[in-house]
């Protein structure tokens, strides 16, 4: 299971990198979103998968899954949401201001 998910993570990273390298602003933002998906899965995998029950003490299970990665991912999900929201508004502003969402055309002046 871990191996399979890790390969999936690598696959998602590949897609994210390819999206990040494109010219369209929306594609770049999508790239960051996919990249954070990959990161969350990776964190999860690192803690070991399906070993024990959910980390709720009332369950009376023999062992629990690793709670620490879960806490980290919970934080990461929220942060990545904030980043995505901010980037989207930035894209919106950029388009309003410059009339383009193409990063190749967004390059500033020759000097400074």
């Amino acid at each position, binding site marked *: *299971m*871990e*191996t*399979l*998910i*890790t390969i*999936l*993570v*690598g*696959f*998602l990273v*590949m*897609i994210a*990198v*390819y*999206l990040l*390298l494109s010219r369209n602003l*929306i*594609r*770049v933002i*999508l790239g960051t*979103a996919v990249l954070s998906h990959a990161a*969350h899965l*990776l964190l*999860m*995998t*690192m803690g*070991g998968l*399906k070993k*024990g029950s*959910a*980390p*709720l*003490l009332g369950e009376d299970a023999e062992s629990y899954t690793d*709670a*620490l990665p*879960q*806490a980290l*991912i*919970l*934080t990461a*999900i929220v*942060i990545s*949401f*904030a*980043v*995505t*929201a*901010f980037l989207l*508004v930035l*894209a*919106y*502003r950029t*388009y*309003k*201001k410059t009339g383009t*969402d193409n*990063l190749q055309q*967004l*390059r500033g002046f020759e000097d400074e």
Partner: protein
Amino acid sequence: MTITLSIFIPFIAAIFVPLLYKRLQSRKIGWFVLLVPLTLFAILASFIPSIAKGETYTHTLRWIDSAGIHFTTYLDGLSLIFSLLITGVGTLVILYSIYYLSERESLGRFYVYLLLFMGAMLGVVFSDNLMVLYVFWELTSISSFLLIAFWYHRKKSRYGAQKSMLITVSGGFAMLAGFIMLHTMTGSYSIREIVASIGLYTDEPLFLISMLLVLVGAFTKSAQFPFHIWLPDAMEAPTPVSAYLHSATMVKAGIYLVARFTPIFGGEMTWFYLVSSVGVFTLFWGSFNAVKQTDLKALLAYSTISQLGLVMSLFGLGSAALNEGHSANSVFYAQATFAALFHLINHSTFKGALFMVVGIVDHELGTRDIRRLGGLMSFMPVTFTIALIGSFSMAGLPPFNGFLSKEMFFESLVNARNLELFDVGTLGTLFLVVAWLASVLTFVYSMIIVFQTFLGKFQPDRIEKPSREASFGMLIAPSILAIFVVGIFFFPNIIGDYLLRPAMTAIYPTLAGVGSLMPRIVPWHGFTNPALWMTVGVVVLGIILYWSFRHWRGIYTLAPLKWNLDSIFNANLVLLEKGSSYFTRLYMKGYLKDYLVYIFTFFIVVVGGAIFLTGSYSFDFSNDAPITMNEYLIVLAMAVAGISILFAKSRMTATILNGVLGYSIAFFFVVFRAPDLALTQAIVETVTTALFLLCFYFLPEWKKERSPVRTKVVNGLIAFSVGSIVTVLALAVQGNKMFESISVYFEDAYRLAGGTNIVNTILGDFRAFDTMLEVVVLFIAGIGVFTLIKLKVRKEERDVEDQ
């Protein structure tokens, strides 16, 4: 302790200047500043008797023990001379500046820089620790830069400031390297400790290199050939600054360094030849160029270069004494150093006075071009007298102090010819001839200052301002210096006994016991003395050359002389600027994509390389959990969704596919026993998708990317490599668990934090601060979003108004 404090007093005073300046708003601020060097001078002067008895003072503030860097101050004869010059000339210059600078100038700024410089300079001469000395050394360069660029609206000021900064700071770097090498060899940063132990290290390979590097520092600071080119351009500074920094004190920091390091490097052949020949050549080159100048200040600048060369060469010649051991001969050569120290003091007096005279002429008449000046004697009698005294002293005529030190200079040169050491032989004669010629030229330009400015025909039509004598206040400072010029001639041995003798002991610690280290300074040596006849020769040839100047000035237009060091410097500067901007543009392209490519390439090379080189790609699949059929299906679905994003025709499809990824992950979270995550992921994914869709309302439909195939292939390769490396890395980490998990600790959550949901207790209790900061991040992002939207609205409103 007093000494340590005296370094800080100017800095502390500098803090108060802006505060007071706001209150006073006039030239009264100068009187406050004047107190600082005056007090310091009085304090330092009180040390003269005890220093003359041979005492020294040290004080240490412990600073960085591990690196051996301490704030150690050391007062001996040598540093006393320099510190008296710094505070003494400083007092006079500030007094002069009170009358020289108009109230409209930003005086507060001026005096802050000046005090900064004064403190830094005192730091240089008092520091025993090389690192501390270096810091103060660079601080003098910086304050000099600020002062030269004081009138920053002038292009020439900025150019001069930049030039002096570039040259002196580069020299400083070289010096720093030299210091570090000295530390590597001897294991100490203390100058006194290095002096005591350097005998053991003279055969080290670093010894010679560190000597050369230290000399580069000294030569750049003291404007020695070929680094002298910054000094004439530094004359763009206000005249009090030129008088203070660029003739009396800062340029002498290099001289100080050479004197201070003579006990370390002196006695070596390289040191002897390098210091004396660079000095002699600078002496000649400076005086040769001074003669052709038409700007009085430029003339003085070149003459300063030349005089610094003279002092430098004397230190070079004097260093030979250390090679001879304790013999009588060594004392004989040490007289050159004595002459150097003596001339150092003399130069500060007469050159300071001359600079102030030029300042007065410039201030009163609005020009310092000697072609437009002439006949000023009739209405500027006092200024004329001071100029006469200063110039004649510089030319080496009696009854002025310059005569004494110049005679001693000639004597040292004559002595050097007999030096058996280092195979001097013919080179000694060459030194003698070149130095003598330089003195003739010195005589010529000294005469130009006096006669072409103050005698001759007055040309009122070529001068903008009405001509009159300078105000009384402006004349005080140069008059005091002029009195010194004459006074030292008649009573030279007061200076000799109280200042020069202890300084000699500082430079020649090994010769301290030899009684005859101290020559008496006498003006008259009798007719058999060669130095006297050399002076006579200087006067005769000098007068001839002065009268025939217009016949031989064509020599300056000869081709090789036009091609000078300045143009090389400028060409190099332009080349450097162009080169660096070309190089920067080569990789700073302004495209997001390129920067990302750099980042990913770096990742591939470094992380991939590290995995490959360390061979850490060993995998261990034995701990893997079993996989069910529907998990396979979801993984397959995610892979398909992922790859489809790349080929999605419309942005809507792409966003929905991203949503598919997000929900699948939520599903996995359920499978992986993470209910909180599954819930959060589902909600966030919904909101994100909605947000994307909302944004699409405002953004254009995406066009098909028309990148060339090559770009696509390169992008694909980069993406593939990054993905593979991440996979390999993650697998390698899973296969080689090196540490025990710390998660067991959190399973005690109920007892420790009173909660049964472990994830919640981690977020709300164990790592509550992290969560709080996370909320802060959200808050900041929220503000960002809000402002970006709000900003736009206002902007549009204004646009409407503009129309």
